[in-house]
């Protein structure tokens, strides 16, 4: 019986619900699918609700994102186990599909960027999304992803370099500057 009483439910609503966007964003990029992210983010919030009693205060966003990240990994392990293998072998480097024409359209730039980000290995993708889209500190990223801070640094460095090299294909740099 881990249900919340009225007081804790109110606290949960005030503290945790403002971070639903962050939860969804992380799930969306880890799972590379909006539809799956909706399901998994909802499940993660339910888990957060059950674990809320154990939340001792502190950085509630990092606490929630850690649950989201773990829920995503469990989901991937069950539904797309091969994706997680990339994490360890890093064989699949980003190979964004070439889009030679119509580079001036911002939507297309976003499409290319999305594809480039999605082709990063899961760990690099998580670290980059947390840093650049969520503005998390290294310490927070380490807590959320359960990896040492030194690994956060090297993952971030590699992620940026991979994304950069994917983005600076001919014509792409200008496109991105024009976003």
């Amino acid at each position: 019986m881990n249900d919340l009483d009225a007081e804790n439910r109110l606290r949960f609503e005030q503290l945790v619900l403002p971070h639903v966007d962050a939860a969804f964003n992380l799930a969306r990029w880890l799972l590379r699918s909006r539809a799956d992210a909706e399901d998994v983010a909802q499940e993660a919030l339910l888990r957060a609700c059950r674990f809320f009693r154990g939340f001792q205060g502190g950085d509630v966003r990092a606490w929630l994102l850690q649950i989201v990240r773990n829920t995503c990994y469990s989901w991937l392990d069950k539904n797309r186990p091969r994706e997680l293998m990339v994490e360890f072998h890093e064989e699949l480097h980003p190979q964004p599909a070439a889009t030679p024409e119509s580079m001036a359209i911002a939507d297309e730039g976003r499409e290319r960027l999305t594809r480039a980000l999605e082709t990063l290995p899961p760990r690099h993708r998580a670290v980059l999304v947390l840093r650049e889209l969520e503005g998390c500190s290294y310490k927070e990223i380490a807590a959320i992803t359960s990896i040492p801070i030194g690994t956060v640094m090297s993952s971030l460095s590699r992620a940026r370099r991979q994304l950069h090299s994917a983005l600076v294909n001919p014509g792409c740099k200008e496109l991105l500057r024009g976003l």
Partner: protein
Amino acid sequence: MDCEHICTIIHVYFDHELSAASDAKFKLHLEHCSDCVADLDACDLVRDSLQRSHIYAHAPALLQRNIRADLRSFAPTTAWSQPLWWYWLAAVAALLFVTILLGRVGHGLRGDDYQAELAGEIVDAHVRSLQPGPLTGIASDDGRIVKGWLDAKLKFAIAVRNFANEGFALQGGRLDVMEGRSVAVLVYERNGHPINVFIWRTREPDTSPRAGSRQGFQWVDWRKGKIEFCAVSDADLVDLEKLHQLISSSA
């Protein structure tokens, strides 16, 4: 310093996560290293692209609604370390308790001046049924164990017997509070129907059993040896009468 390490430092610098001393040192290095400056530009391009492309995925309104619906479906209960059995027992007992008290009012067993006090008890019992705290109780079919447990907590001793052979299986005992006094509750089961026997000390003289019913619940109340008993159940009144005889003859 290996190349990988230096490459990493650029990013740590870019993220303002270097210590003040290292940060100052790295700034000096940047003045004469075009490679590092180019790498910083690359970092900047990546960040700029990600942040300006609006690829941040905001939660759809439906997800927000679903999560709030999930939250509402969480029952408002308090921490519960006791077995689930006690939870239901408490709820049933509180309901029966209210029922019996209402029954008494309805049947005019007590004087009108008693009603104000009674109302307080009803409210208390009601609150308990809504917000069951950790219940003090013992689940056992051994009369001696239940008696030992109750005796240690009550200012009076009661006999506790398991009448399983007679069809009244002892389930356990519990403490409740009524009129500010501790009340013992013995729980029996008769053909699947739980029977709660509320037991408290009284100064009133012995009585023969009085029976009543209210909202489908039956009760039998009697006093013996300065102890008042009130058995409540949805079981048949004949069964309650039988239990009264068993308890009275065993005391």
